[in-house]
């Protein structure tokens, strides 16, 4: 059905291919530059942005530091409101729970609201294996699903496609999934949206079961919140009889009031709008008698590596993420490499710190992700919950190179230093030795200065990759410390 991220090559290898693809680079440059300017404008409208950002960060931090208590409070509130709460330790368990719930309804198809959590666990593929067809209803997810493709952006999974490519996918693939696209479909975005509207409407109207995620879960009331633009979310959340929501345990906020922060920061950070077109809020099955809330509501609380991330005192801040994607849109690396190179449903800067923590750094791609950054810090500046992404990147690089204690599937284990970084470790060991032996350092520096005309312009051996795109720093004719002693700190030179 859709592509998979399994067996992805390391980031540099995947990125090299992407960087050579001129259509892809054009699509990404156009899209990211458009949204960057719009976001800056939307944020500048709020004079208290910094205070909102700080409040958002503190709310999330507080919640994470007392997550057990809030999870229990949420469970009680959802249950009291007529919902059923399920707990899933990993992707496999979550998929099994959802498949069983769908089967219990007697249905063999579900409509889906765009959800990062269900992408992360590969729910569509798992349901397919159980004979259940999952229809993505978000426009970009539809483009990805019809194209047998992989998502490349958190908010706009088909950002790597331009309008012409989308028209071609609709024309050739829609018929196999339901109502075909019109013969004379052009590449105007309005016509493409119209084709999606017609294609999906028949699925919404007949759907009996829907699967969603959630942007927020309010512990004190048991209320779930989904923000969206198109109305496909509202269709899925109100028309079907059974609603199953798969939500990461970190999506909790303690109180109803806390939404006043995130409902201001999320839309402006993500689509650069004052408010997204539609936000739905529901509390269990409250109101299902008079209003049309689904008659059965199941909440699947997902761990899948989140508690392991929580155990890392530096890395746990990644769990503050509200999935706005502002960090992707400003990232110079993302803009050039695209989302697929990150080998995860979470691309960009946030993906570079989230994927290696959720999945561990065991695979090539995950061990390479902390290096998929120039550490420029633009991601930190725009983050509406102030995740210090560069700090976590450096922390994870150290973890990869040096190894050390981590938590995997709830168990403390000690990581071995990664193989590919032996030279780096040797250099660091040599540096440590030199800096603690002043005589040797002085001798080495003098030797280096005097031999400087013989220095190569690029490094040999394993250093070549580093110097291929960088100039080696030029050495001065005289080491700094010699100069200092000779001139008494510059006093005699004047």
């Amino acid at each position, binding site marked *: 059905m859709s592509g998979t991220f399994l067996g992805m090559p390391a980031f540099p290898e995947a990125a090299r291919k992407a960087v050579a693809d001129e259509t892809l680079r054009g699509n990404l440059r156009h899209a990211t530059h458009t949204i960057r300017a719009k976001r800056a404008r939307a944020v500048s409208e709020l004079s208290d942005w910094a205070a909102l950002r700080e409040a958002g960060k503190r709310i999330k931090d507080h919640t994470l530091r007392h997550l057990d208590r809030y999870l229990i409070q949420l469970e009680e509130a959802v249950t009291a409101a007529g919902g059923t709460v399920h707990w899933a330790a990993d992707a496999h368990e979550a998929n099994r729970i959802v498949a069983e719930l769908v089967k219990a309804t007697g249905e063999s198809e579900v409509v889906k609201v765009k959800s990062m959590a269900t992408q992360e666990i590969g729910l569509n593929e798992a349901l397919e294996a159980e004979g259940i067809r999952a229809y993505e209803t978000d426009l970009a997810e539809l483009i990805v699903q019809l194209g047998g493709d992989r998502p490349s952006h958190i908010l706009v999974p088909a950002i790597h496609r331009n309008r012409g490519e989308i028209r071609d996918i609709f024309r050739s693939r829609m018929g196999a999934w339901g109502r075909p696209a019109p013969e004379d479909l052009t590449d105007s975005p309005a016509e493409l*949206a119209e084709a999606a509207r017609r294609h999906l409407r028949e699925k919404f109207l007949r759907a009996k079961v829907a699967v969603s995620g959630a942007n927020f879960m309010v512990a004190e009331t048991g209320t779930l919140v989904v923000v969206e633009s198109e109305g496909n979310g509202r269709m899925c959340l109100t028309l079907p009889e059974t609603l199953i929501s798969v939500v990461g345990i970190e999506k909790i906020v303690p109180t109803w009031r806390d939404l006043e922060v995130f409902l201001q920061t999320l839309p402006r950070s993500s689509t650069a709008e004052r408010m997204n077109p539609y936000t739905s809020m529901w509390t269990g099955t409250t109101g299902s008698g008079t209003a049309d809330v689904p008659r059965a509501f199941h909440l699947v609380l997902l761990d899948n590596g989140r508690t392991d991330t929580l155990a890392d005192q530096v890395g746990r801040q990644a769990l503050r993420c509200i999935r706005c994607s502002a960090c992707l849109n400003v990232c110079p690396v993302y803009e050039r490499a695209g989302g697929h190179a990150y080998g995860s449903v979470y691309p960009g800067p946030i993906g570079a710190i989230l994927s290696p923590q959720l999945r561990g750094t065991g695979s090539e791609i995950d061990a390479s992700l902390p290096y998929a950054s120039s550490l420029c810090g633009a991601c930190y500046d725009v983050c509406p919950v102030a995740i210090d992404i560069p700090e976590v990147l450096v922390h994870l690089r150290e973890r990869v190179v040096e190894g050390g204690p981590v938590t995997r599937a709830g168990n403390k284990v000690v990581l071995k230093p990664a193989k590919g970084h032996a030279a780096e470790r040797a250099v660091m060991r040599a540096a440590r030795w030199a800096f603690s032996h002043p005589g040797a350092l002085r001798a080495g520096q003098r030797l280096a200065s005097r031999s400087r005309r013989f220095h190569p312009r690029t490094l040999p051996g394993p250093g070549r990759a580093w110097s291929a795109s960088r100039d080696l720093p030029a050495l001065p004719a005289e080491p700094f410390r010699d100069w200092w002693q000779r001139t008494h700190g510059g006093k005699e030179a004047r």
Partner: protein
Amino acid sequence: MSGSRELILGRVRRALADVPEDETPYEQAVPRDYGERHGERTPAETVDLLAENLADYRAIVHRTNAPGLPSVLAGLLAARGARTVLVPAGLPSHWLTGVEQVADRAESTPYELDRVDSVVTGCAVAIAETGTLVLDGSPDQGRPRITLVPDHHICVVRVPDQVVSSVPQALRRLTPTRPMTWISGPSATSDIELERVEGVHGPRTLEVVLMSEA
């Protein structure tokens, strides 16, 4: 199921072993020094801002007073060519004249709703700073689905009573446990090259009537 519950809660507690028992409680942990609203406005100016922001996101805004409402609604529906109008149970009956009204019934299927031309509702609260209408399923607003499936939605806002400046003020007026829909302009998408296109699954035309009492 309960096995995983205990497993996850146990993992969470072990992960948080570094958090001291006497950590700052919630009330003091979150600084609330952000604004209660942005800017000082009279009630009339707040209504103007609402109108401006609604229009900015392509909602069509009309203004009238209570006595003028029925003729404004009749005019909008006629201009649209709407033959059938979906009506929530609690909508004041004198608002609509001269058009076939379809009552919203719990047993109406989505297919029936799909055949209706327009829907007219009230709202619970409107937010000026963001151009947002909040519907909470009260009798004059009906079920969330009736403002979703038809392609044309007319929402009547009583001004200035139902208008607040900001998101924080709106949340305070609302009851969390009611099923809620926040609407800011017609259905839209930015999924094609991050350019906003109005009109995907929800109503493609959203008209808002700002109604003052006199």
